[in-house]
């Protein structure tokens, strides 16, 4: 029996500093996938890396060996010793793991429960896995079910209402600082789905102007176009700081993009008007010391979580509904997983052929008029042996594959060719 395992860390188990280490290099995903592909013990693999989580999802027949190699990957990619990493990690197996994937995809495990970005990130991770050819029958099925669960949770519960997004949290905070957002100016540094969403949300709450800075000016122009904003050069950030009221940062830069010195200088020019930094980037873009300056408020992604906690109670009810959907789907997936064995497939195949034979025989008998008992028996024997001969070779192939790594593919193909799962889906 193949095991489905998740090893990873999220915003709850790991400090932002540790997550930063692993998320620093965007090439880490393909590196992790290639290790998974080449490793003997790992049959299928998928690697998720977002601001708030780093997870390896894989199937294996050899749990401990696979686990060790994954831990090695983490510690190598993050440059952290495995012992230091261990307390931040969780390991989930089989049902637990399936449930976890469903929850992650439907944004139930997100820092801001219900935020819409995670599904896109999971889809991207899956896309990368299929490109790297590390995803197989089980993960394909699992991920497609996960997308389905996410869709159900989004449409059937109120969990993804705007009220729960990180942007909402940021807007609420901005209102506690500025009272009104009308006439305020936003500076968006970098790009990214979450940052752009936050910017859009601020705009819909009356923010007047938006400037967009990016390392590549072309990209800045492109992003600014979507907001009717003003693209600026990356080098102009400091002068933009004098004008801006709210700064959203979301770059992939490993160093601080906005430093204590810069902000301090700009405060003199802006006559101490308050400045609110929303730092969505991991690793962080705004030097944490900036928060100690007067009238300057820096919130990184972990801090925003604290704001969101406040209205958490209101969402509990919807969360229960979402959990029920997840449980339903977990059971369904488990049922499918159980059929993915050689014996159940052969049994099901035989059943199906037998069903067809009987139906057809009954139909023909009524058209043949009066037959003797002997003739009936001959017909029965004839149809049975035809049917058995037809499925003899497929069954033989399945039996031969029982212990091969390609087993799951053959099983899956068989089930699809003969449509054995029709009453399951």
């Amino acid at each position: 029996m193949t095991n489905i395992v998740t090893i990873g860390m999220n915003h709850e188990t790991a400090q932002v500093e540790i997550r930063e280490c692993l998320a620093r290099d965007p090439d880490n995903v393909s590196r992790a996938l290639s290790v998974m592909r080449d490793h003997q013990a790992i049959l299928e693999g998928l690697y998720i890396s977002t601001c708030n989580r780093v997870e390896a999802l894989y199937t294996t027949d050899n749990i401990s060996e696979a686990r060790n190699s994954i831990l090695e990957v983490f510690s190598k990619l993050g440059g952290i010793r495995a012992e230091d990493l261990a307390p931040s990690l969780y390991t989930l197996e089989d049902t637990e793991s399936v449930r976890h994937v469903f929850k992650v995809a439907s944004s139930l495990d997100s820092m801001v429960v219900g935020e819409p970005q995670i599904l896109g990130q999971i889809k991207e991770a899956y896309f990368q896995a299929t490109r790297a050819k590390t995803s197989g029958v089980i993960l394909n099925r699992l991920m497609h079910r996960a997308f389905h669960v996410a869709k159900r949770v989004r449409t059937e519960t109120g969990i993804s209402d705007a009220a729960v997004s990180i942007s909402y949290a940021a807007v609420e905070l901005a209102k506690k600082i500025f009272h009104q957002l009308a006439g305020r100016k936003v500076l968006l540094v970098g790009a990214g789905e979450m940052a752009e969403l936050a910017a859009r949300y601020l705009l819909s709450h009356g923010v007047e102007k938006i400037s967009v800075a990016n390392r590549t000016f072309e990209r800045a122009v492109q992003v600014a176009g979507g907001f009717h904003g003003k693209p600026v050069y990356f080098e102009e950030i400091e002068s933009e700081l004098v004008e801006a009221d709210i700064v959203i940062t979301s770059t992939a830069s490993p160093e601080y993009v906005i430093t204590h010195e810069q902000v301090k200088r700009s405060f003199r020019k802006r006559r101490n008007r308050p400045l609110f930094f929303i730092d969505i980037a991991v690793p962080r873009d705004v030097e944490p010391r900036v928060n100690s300056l007067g009238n300057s408020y820096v919130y990184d992604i972990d801090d925003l979580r604290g704001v969101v906690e406040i209205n958490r109670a209101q969402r509990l009810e919807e969360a229960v509904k979402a959990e029920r959907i997840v449980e339903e789907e977990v059971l369904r997936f488990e049922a499918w997983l159980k059929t993915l064995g050689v014996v159940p497939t052969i049994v099901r195949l035989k059943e199906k052929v037998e069903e067809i034979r009987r139906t057809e025989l009954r139909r023909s008998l009524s058209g043949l008029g009066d037959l003797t008992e002997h003739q009936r028996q001959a017909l029965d024997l004839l149809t049975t042996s035809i049917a058995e001969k037809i499925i003899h070779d497929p069954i033989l192939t399945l039996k031969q594959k029982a212990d091969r790594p390609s087993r799951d593919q053959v099983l899956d193909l068989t089930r699809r060719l003969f449509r054995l799962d029709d009453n399951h889906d």
Partner: protein
Amino acid sequence: MALILYRLALLLVLLATGGMIVFIVRQRKSVFKWSYRILVAGFAVHTVFLVHQYIAMGTAPVLSLKSALGFFAWTITGAYLLFQLKFRLMVLGSFIAPLAAVLMILSTTIPGTEGATAGPLFKSVWLTIHVVTVFAGDGMFAIMFGAAVMYLLQERQIKGKRFGFLYTRLPSLQTLDSINHHALVIGFPLLTLGMVTGAIYAQQALGSYWRWDPKEVWSLITWLAYAVLLHERLTVGWRGKRAAVMSIICFGLLIFTFVGVSLLFSDYHSFSSLEGRTAQ
């Protein structure tokens, strides 16, 4: 008659204060509405009381610490009601009403009666303007103090990223800072006018504009402190926490000038000598 009016005003202010405190905990708008109405009623009764005193004494009823405290409470309430009209900031009442109530209670605990006709020395229009403007300015500064305390509480939560009981109840930093600004811009000219008219009155009544008595000196220090705050606000752009801290320091000075100096030093400005003179 006067005593009944004052007691009634005090009762209404206390009721309103209680209501405002219930409001900050329970966040029921109706509670605030009723408290606000009761406070307005209390203010009206208090106003009638003051008018009565003014007519009876022939001058502004602030010649003893007792009556001065009562008058101060009245100006604070008045300043709050004005700000309520502009900012519609319900929670400010929860901070200001208790302050007014405490001052009124303090006033009742000080023994002494008032109502005797003031000596001719006190029957001057300059004195009336002096007293009214100084106290109106003080009322504004009390609002500023309340807003500053609220600002510090709220800022600490936002900066420290710990959101407690008060986070949702307190207004935005911008609003609180704006109250600070407005109260200062209105309060400072009133205080200045009060000091100028005081000097004119002193010239008429006592023959010199400035006598360096402790109250005058401390008033000048307080005035200078507020002047610094106003200057820094308008030119350098002091705001937020620094302005709030400075407002609290300034208000401390103001209270010291108002109460402390009167009790510690004995001089022509102190209430004991004022009272002495009313009997003359």
